């Protein structure tokens, strides 16, 4: 378990997560959760760890159980309680065929969407690179 300070979370821009960033993360959370279950069944804490190690989706931990609850009600995942060696049972989730279908459609949309967006923001990347190179050469010129 890692507790991050506010300063550590501030990231590249030096500011706390902005509203648009939160909306972007929130919008991709359902797909992220379904994706963690693509190959295997997992319980809540495993899903959370996988989400945070694989995508940096930071979330209030209880929220994941609310979302799993909703996905289960929508028939996209199914769950079963399994006894564990640690002394308390764990609730494992797996994708249903409907969940797999939904995930594949989400991934298809996401891939097409990000490809188009990448094209759109390519000039911004280029501009950043040029700015960065310009600063370096001015520093070396000094």
């Amino acid at each position, binding site marked *: *378990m*890692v*507790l*991050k*300070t*506010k300063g550590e*979370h501030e990231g590249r821009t030096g500011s*706390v*997560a902005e*509203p648009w960033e*939160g*909306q972007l*993360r*929130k919008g991709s*959370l*359902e797909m992220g959760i379904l994706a963690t279950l693509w190959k295997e069944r997992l*319980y*809540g*804490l495993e899903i*959370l*760890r996988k989400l*945070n190690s694989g995508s*940096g989706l*930071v*979330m*209030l*931990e*209880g*929220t994941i*159980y*609310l*979302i799993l*609850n*909703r996905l289960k*009600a*929508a028939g996209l995942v199914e769950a079963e309680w399994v006894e564990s060696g*640690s*002394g*308390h*049972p*764990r*609730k494992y989730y797996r994708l249903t065929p409907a969940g797999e279908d939904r995930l594949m459609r989400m991934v298809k949309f996401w891939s097409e969407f990000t490809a188009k967006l990448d094209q759109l923001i390519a000039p911004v990347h280029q501009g950043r690179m040029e700015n960065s190179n310009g600063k370096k050469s001015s520093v070396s010129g000094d």
Partner: protein
Amino acid sequence: MEKNRVFPEIEEYLTTLRRSCAGIPVQECEEFVNEIRSHLMERVEGSDATTESVTAILEAMGRPQQLAAQLKTGHVWKKASASFSPNLLLRGMFRLALTGIIGFVAFLAAVAGYGCGIASLLTVALKPFFPSHIGLWLSSGRTLTLGFADGGLENAVTYGISLRSPGLFVLGTLGPDGPVRDFAGPWIYLIALGAAAVFLVVTTLFSQRIIARWGMRRGRVPRRATMNPRYVG
């Protein structure tokens, strides 16, 4: 760490969570509480189990009242999306109104829709008791009102579902608008019943659809509940 050790902070958290779940089926609440318990215990086992670390673990989980409120919202949406009860649908729409501007506008539309349905039914119910005051009223200023007209017909104020050219619509009154005449006569019963059926059916289908689309499927969760800048597990 000693197995089956009891942590008062965790027990207190779970008790608050269970108490805040009142209103949803006991089995659903217990299953949620058990899952949260399993999560917390595994977190504590992976820590040094000091008071500070347990407090941090509970904080990372989120406030129990907030979790329970969202669980209840999910439960209301699930029931409402397949229900024909105006009470349940309006409760679902009210919870949706708290999630953003679209939900708020949809809630107002549902209130207006059910309000018009009730006004139409009241028109039918009150016509036998106030035959000269209940009707479909057309004023000289081109205001059409289904409902009640007070005072004399020369300059009556009408109350109910009012339409005024060009495109003004209110549930209530648009104020005095010159002399009025009853436009429907005995057909008022059929007209008002038809209007009530249309308003109630359309509002019910609209509310079910909105809740299913914006509530259940999109899983609207307040931003503050998803983002926790202090913790990465």
